[in-house]
């Protein structure tokens, strides 16, 4: 088992005919992901990378049968609309890669999805990968390896960084999830921790947070009462100056909230092992796994 996606997952790509959407769709197919349909309004009837393209998500579902997951590359001005179109067809897992969606649009999306049983990952995220089974996103597949450590991160490139370190040390991953760097995201780190906690094939969790907001503190609250599996945490942005947005719209220290120090303290108090250096995530995980007899 794993979380969110596996080798059976049937994937639709929204924005399949775009430059990045196309390039990444090919990489997903090469990895072994079951891409069963694409959607680009006005391009219905075409084929891209051997996959039939439809005008609407509804058409894709009608023609191709059940679709479990949608991967969205639609440009920012239309991305919120694309998410809601996937939701309207009851696609259970919606993964939105798009960066730069207006926050007000995401506020409406979040409200619309609130009472549904659908899971939105992202936006502004690298997607989800279950190594050797299914890659639904933009991550470099070659650095991932199958195993029993779950990885969750706000940043995409820090997923690759952490996983590269793990893989080099022979530590494989169950599933890796980038939840996204925007102020409003569909699924929080706390929710992904809960999924990993309930996944019998995940033994330990690497969590990568960053400055801004209170998502790591909320994750710490959950860890405290619920998670027995070991957690290694790194928080990016210890050296970031306050009041400046560090790339991610959500990564800004406002007053005393959102600092790396406050997040590390909350996670440490909840029992997570804090890794101060981004270069030591793999080594720290290795020593924790050894300590717990998990390797």
């Amino acid at each position: 088992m794993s979380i969110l996606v596996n080798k059976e997952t049937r994937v639709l790509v929204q924005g399949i005919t775009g430059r990045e959407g196309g390039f990444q769709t090919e990489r997903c197919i090469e990895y072994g992901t079951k891409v069963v349909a694409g959607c680009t309004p006005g391009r219905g009837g075409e084929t891209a990378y051997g996959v039939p393209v439809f005008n609407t998500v509804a058409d894709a579902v009608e023609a191709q049968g059940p679709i479990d997951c949608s991967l969205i590359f639609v440009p920012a001005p239309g991305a919120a609309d694309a998410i809601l179109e996937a939701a309207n067809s009851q696609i259970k897992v919606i993964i939105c890669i798009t960066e730069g969606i207006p926050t007000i649009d995401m506020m409406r999306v979040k409200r619309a999805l609130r009472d549904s049983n659908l899971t939105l990952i992202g936006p502004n995220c690298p997607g989800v990968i279950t190594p050797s089974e299914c890659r639904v996103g933009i991550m470099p597949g070659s650095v991932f390896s199958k195993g029993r450590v779950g990885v969750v991160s706000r940043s995409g490139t820090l997923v690759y960084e952490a996983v590269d370190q793990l893989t080099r040390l022979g530590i494989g991953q169950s599933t890796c999830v980038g939840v996204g760097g925007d102020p409003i995201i569909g699924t929080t780190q706390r929710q992904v921790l809960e999924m990993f906690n309930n996944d019998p094939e995940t033994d330990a969790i690497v969590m990568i947070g960053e400055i801004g907001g209170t998502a790591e503190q909320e994750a710490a609250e959950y860890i405290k009462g619920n998670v027995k599996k070991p957690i290694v945490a790194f928080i990016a942005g210890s050296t970031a100056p306050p009041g400046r947005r560090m790339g991610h719209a959500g990564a800004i220290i406002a007053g005393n909230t959102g600092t790396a120090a406050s997040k590390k303290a909350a996670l440490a108090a909840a029992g997570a092992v804090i890794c101060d250096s981004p270069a030591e995530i793999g080594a720290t995980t290795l020593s924790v796994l050894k300590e717990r007899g998990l390797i």
Partner: protein
Amino acid sequence: MKVHEYQAKELLAKYGVPVPNGRVATTPREAREIALELGGPSVVKAQIHAGGRGKGGGIKLAANADEAEAAAKQVIGMTLVTPQTGPEGRLVRSVLVEEQTPVERELYLAALIDSSTGFPVLMGSSAGGMEIEEVAATNPEAIHRVSIDPAAGFQPYEGRQLAFALGLTGDLLRPAVALMADLYRFFVEKDCSLAEINPLVVTKDNRILALDAKLNFDDNAAFRHADILALRDKDEEDPLEVRAQEEGISNYVKLDGNIGCVVNGAGLAMATMDAIKLAGGEPANFLDIATANDPQRVVNALGIITSDPNVKAILINIFGGMARVDIIAEGIIKANEDLKLNVPIVARLAGTNLEEGVRMLEASSVKCERAEDLGEAARKAVAAAKVGA
């Protein structure tokens, strides 16, 4: 994006928020004319994108037009240092000349997004005129919040809850609720990340008025707000940051160290800064090159970094996902030719199309020290900067 106080007030006034009468002036003479138009005593307020202006001497009271002119003469052209500008301060280029308002009470009101729920909130405080972070730390019970359902939008009962909590009762109740509705409508329609009125005042003659206003706009929504974009004042921004944006690098923040960083991804860019610090160095900037997959963008990034005279070494840290290492390598090679780079470069490359990128770099005349991982890259960059310094 930020705007000046006078622009914020003009924008809010169009949505019905009551503000004092006044206008902006760029010369003492204009300030005099505005004060004459207003009639009575006025206040002359320096217009810069930073708070705490009063403490730095940027806000002056004037009894008549002569005094307004004299105040403007003092303030326009001064370098105003406030707790928010840093020690270098900001040059004042314009002043807002406004009628003086006799104040009975000062409050705080803001619309923002609560990131833990993803819903907008209206936040009010009975301790106006203070930074809200300070109120939260010292007097949290003074802060009241109402969460707004974005599907239904702002409802008058939500406004009444907040108004009663802030003591805006009697004749003030209706105008207070109307003001909140206007503020919320503005916040949503104009894609704000923060719309703050501080202080919101009750006047001696029992009116409510936005005495100061601060608006931050969501850069991601700029494409649909040409009117807001036209208000941008590049004089208020760091020149290198402005140049970075013009050259397609939206995520550059200048810092004080001597190791220039080119990284893909905001998280990795922050972590790279952290690694440099842990290795005993200081980053010169935050720079996320994002995933444009355009070699020219790499050239531009290196051009911006090397025009900072403090930079003694460059650390390029690319972990290709959507970004491709071969395209980054093409950019480094082009930058080396175009810019005649003469600071040591440490490159850590990994991920998508790595082999091709490394082949290209090795076949080129670029002198860069390769590093296998982030820790090694940081150590090598710190060592190179020490030699260069």
